[in-house]
């Protein structure tokens, strides 16, 4: 069985071509655009409290 060896220096994944990269950027941007500042703050506060980072 092949075992994971991060030190082996595997080549990084190649960058996608133009159209695929544009689609990926759109997905990332859309995800951010859906979040209002207030919702983001509330959400982050919940994580802070649960993780004990408050």
């Amino acid at each position: 069985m092949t075992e994971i060896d991060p030190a082996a220096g595997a080549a990084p994944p190649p960058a996608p071509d133009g159209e695929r990269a544009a689609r990926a950027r759109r997905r990332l941007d859309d995800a951010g655009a859906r979040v209002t500042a207030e919702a983001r703050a509330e959400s982050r506060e919940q994580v802070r409290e649960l993780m004990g980072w408050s």
Partner: protein
Amino acid sequence: MSDRPAATGLVLDPSAVLAYTQGNSGVDDLVGTVLADGGTVVVPAVALAETRSELAYAEELARLDTLLGAVTVAPLGGGDAVGLGRLASRLNGTLGLAHAVAEAHRHEARLLTAHGPAVRRTIGELDGIVDL
């Protein structure tokens, strides 16, 4: 040169890491694009361990190896263990998903997951959730 204001970070939960190892081109493109744009792709250690426990095929392990050559693996500090358990309980999800949510918070990064609806319902949108 990109006109994007700042490089976007991306955190992969176990479902995203698994999808990557199975050759999901959408995940491949997101990872490649974030890295090409100078951003950071984070794989939380618990998400990595959880995913590795489910892999058996050489092709999947080779793809995981490739991914690990390009991303940052975020460790779990001992001081965060109890909090992570609390977060997993709230999410009604796995520890790997909880670690991904915590790292998305820490890095102010997008979270890539197949469990977006559950995260939104219980925690909210954080800095943006990208659905698988």
